[in-house]
């Protein structure tokens, strides 16, 4: 009972009852303590039910009575089956109180136990971690900035102040500047003047933001285009460029229409006419530029530029040449002479070079032509050779037939016999082929069947393997879950208060269980002993009855003849009767003894109920109530 009491007291303490350290068992509970414990438990179990009850006993006797009644009612509402009334609380006896408290403690909600049955979600763990972190940070004392260690700087510095703001970047090979051929100037710009992307934004802090922004915009544009192309573009069966240009034209038309509709000149307002006409002009220009595709203008510009750069240099050279030529006759100094000579030589050489290169090109063209013609000729040659060989074959056949012509009849017969022989051979061969074919086909069929069997088996095995894989995955997941649960439970177990030693309880429980087992064994042994005894007794009584009957008969027969035998018969009958009486008496004694033991037990339990003290208490309380009543009556009389 001590163990039970300790567990009860521990649970009651957790429910909020204030129990002194020296109270060790339910026997020591006073009425006040009982009432408090019950009320606290009721409040935890059902706040609506317990809130109307006060945990302290009131001083007035009638109020006490009422509280006892309402407590008993509440316990019955909760489903308590035992006998309960105001007397349970006010005039307590140990076993009743114990059973009541056990019932209440069992009814206490076990949220924590239920909650820990399932693995907590990730969010709960995260929140726990955040809460722990914040708690740790709050525990650190604040330090002025100059005294902070690197450890504190992380948590106590004001953090990043600048905002996350993006700026446009200039990147080569991006999506915006598409992959079409770039002009020379653009390439030069990329090579010479484009600063690295890390130094492009004006603030260092916005590098990351700008890069992310750039990337995201390009990515989303690419995705959108892909979506559109897959959903609509492919259906239109156009090339991407065509589709784009068509879409652009459609959009421009639409915008134009919208603007035109918005810019309809209204007759009632004069001020707007001018602006609308401006808008109309703008629209015209808009339409003009749209129809003339910017690709075209761009193309012309580039061709212009090319022409410009390529034609300018020869002109310049020619001008210089002319200048040099005019300068030649006017100067007679040797140096100038030499220079002029050299220049003339240079120009001559350049001309020669140009001539040579022109010649080279001509010759190259000739060579190309010639190689092409060679190819053609060789092709022709091959064809001719082929036809030649064919013709030769036909000629040979014809020649043979011509040779055979003179002795035509003989040859005909010979030919016929040859033909017949070959026909026979063919038939023979076919028969042989059939002979070989039948077993081969059978073999083929057999193999095919085998193959299909194998295939079926393999597919079956495959499905089995798949099932196994599924199972493995499931079990792995389950194992993971269980592991998580285990870890969580371990941490929770570590955080649990250690005042209740579980192992002691389990040891005790195991001990009790083994004791009970032993007792059960003993009981069964005793029961079997009793049964044996009963059997023996029955056997003996039967034997006795039989022997008595036999003896009785024998003696009765002789008794008619002999007087002394008659006497002994009488004695026998008396002896039998006495013995029966004796046995009856012994049995009666046994039952009476049992009754006595029962009664003694009853007396003990009645003694345990503190009847005398309770009766005294009841008497006192009765007196108190009478006093109260008389006081109240006096008050009424006075009033």
């Amino acid at each position, binding site marked *: 009972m001590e163990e039970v009491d300790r567990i009860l007291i521990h649970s009651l303490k957790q429910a909020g009852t204030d129990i002194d350290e020296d109270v060790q068992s339910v026997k020591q509970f006073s009425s006040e303590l009982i009432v408090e414990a019950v009320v606290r438990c009721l409040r935890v179990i059902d706040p609506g039910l317990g809130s109307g009850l006060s945990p302290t006993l009131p001083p007035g006797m009638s109020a006490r009575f009422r509280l006892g009644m309402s407590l008993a009612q509440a316990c019955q509402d909760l489903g308590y089956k035992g006998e309960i009334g105001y007397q349970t609380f006010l005039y307590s006896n140990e076993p009743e109180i114990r059973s009541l408290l056990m019932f209440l403690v069992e009814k206490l909600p076990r949220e924590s136990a239920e909650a820990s049955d399932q693995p907590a979600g990730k969010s709960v763990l995260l929140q726990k971690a955040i*809460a722990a972190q914040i708690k740790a940070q709050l525990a650190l004392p604040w330090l002025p900035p100059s005294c902070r260690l690197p450890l504190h700087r992380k948590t106590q510095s004001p953090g990043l102040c600048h*905002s996350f*703001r993006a700026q*446009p970047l*200039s990147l080569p090979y991006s999506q915006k500047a598409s992959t079409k051929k770039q002009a020379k100037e653009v390439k030069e710009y990329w090579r010479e003047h484009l600063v690295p992307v890390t130094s492009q934004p*004006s603030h260092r802090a916005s590098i990351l933001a700008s890069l992310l922004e750039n990337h995201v915009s390009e990515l989303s544009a690419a995705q959108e285009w892909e979506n559109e192309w897959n959903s609509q573009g492919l259906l239109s069966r156009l090339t991407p460029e065509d589709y784009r240009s068509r*879409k652009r034209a459609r959009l421009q038309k639409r915008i134009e229409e919208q603007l035109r509709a918005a810019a309809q000149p209204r007759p009632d307002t004069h001020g707007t006419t001018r602006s609308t006409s401006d808008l109309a002009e703008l629209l015209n220009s808009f339409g003009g*530029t749209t129809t003339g595709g910017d690709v075209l203008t761009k193309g012309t510009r580039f061709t212009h530029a090319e022409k410009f750069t390529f034609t300018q240099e020869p002109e310049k050279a020619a001008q210089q040449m002319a200048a040099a030529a005019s300068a030649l006759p006017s100067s007679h100094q040797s140096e100038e002479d030499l220079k002029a000579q050299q220049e003339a030589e240079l120009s001559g050489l350049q001309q020669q070079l140009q001539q040579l290169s022109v010649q080279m090109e001509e010759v190259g063209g000739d060579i190309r032509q010639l190689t092409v013609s060679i190819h053609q000729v060789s092709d022709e040659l091959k064809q001719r050779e082929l036809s030649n060989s064919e013709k030769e074959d036909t000629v040979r056949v014809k020649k043979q037939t011509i040779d055979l012509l003179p002795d035509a009849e003989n040859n005909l017969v010979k030919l016929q016999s040859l033909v017949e022989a070959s026909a026979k051979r063919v038939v023979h061969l076919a028969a042989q082929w059939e002979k070989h074919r039948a077993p081969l086909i059978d073999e083929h069929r057999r193999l095919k069947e085998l193959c299909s069997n194998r295939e079926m088996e393999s597919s079956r095995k495959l499905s089995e393997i798949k099932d196994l894989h599924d199972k493995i995955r499931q079990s792995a997941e389950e194992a993971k879950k269980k592991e998580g649960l285990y870890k969580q439970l371990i941490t929770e177990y570590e955080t649990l208060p250690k005042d209740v030693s579980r192992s002691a309880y389990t040891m005790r429980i195991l001990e009790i269980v083994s004791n009970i087992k032993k007792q059960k064994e003993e009981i069964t042994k005793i029961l079997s002993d009793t049964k044996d005894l009963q059997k023996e007794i029955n056997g003996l009584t039967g034997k006795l009855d039989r022997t008595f009957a036999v003896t009785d008969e024998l003696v009765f027969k002789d008794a008619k003849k002999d007087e002394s035998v008659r006497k002994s018969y009488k004695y026998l009958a008396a002896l039998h009767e006495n013995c029966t009486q004796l046995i009856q008496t012994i049995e009666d004694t046994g039952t009476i003894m049992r009754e006595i033991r029962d009664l003694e037990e009853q007396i003990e339990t009645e003694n345990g109920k503190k009847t005398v003290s309770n009766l005294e208490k009841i008497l006192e309380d009765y007196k108190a109530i009478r006093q109260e009543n008389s006081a109240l009556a006096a008050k009424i009389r006075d009033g």
Partner: protein
Amino acid sequence: MIKLLEKITPTESLKFLHRVVDGLCGRSYPRRIEYGEAWSLTEFGELTNSLSKFFTVAVGRKCSDQEVQELLGDLDSAHAAVVLQCVHARQEEIRLSLVDRTNGISSTQLQDFNWQIKLALSSDKLSSLNTPLLNLSLDMKENGLQRAVNIEMNKEELQTLISALEAANKVVLQLK
């Protein structure tokens, strides 16, 4: 005004021009300190302004080379060639930035946005709140003035905002 460009050599001026285009495209303009010896403050301002205008016009109207030359006026040929090269090199980029500007045709535009997610663990009344909150800050340009708008939203409000934006996006897609 563009004639002021002749105060530095063509190679230097090419670099300078690229920086001006950078500024036009939303990055930083060249700093005056670096060119303090060449121009005074007013000269520098006028030069950058007129160069920006020139680039806008030259790319916006899709001028041919000759028209560009005419726009440049009496700039000497070496510098003019450099300017032309710069225009050719940066044409696409300038065009994109101009398109961007044209897109912002309405009186109020969204320039940039930023968001932060916060988890309110508890409040003054509740010990455990655990409500995620989104802090959305929008950088608006209203009639040429910068204005920052900060909104704090809980989950439901954010859902409403997102559904409204999705509906708007659907309308835009239908326009396409």
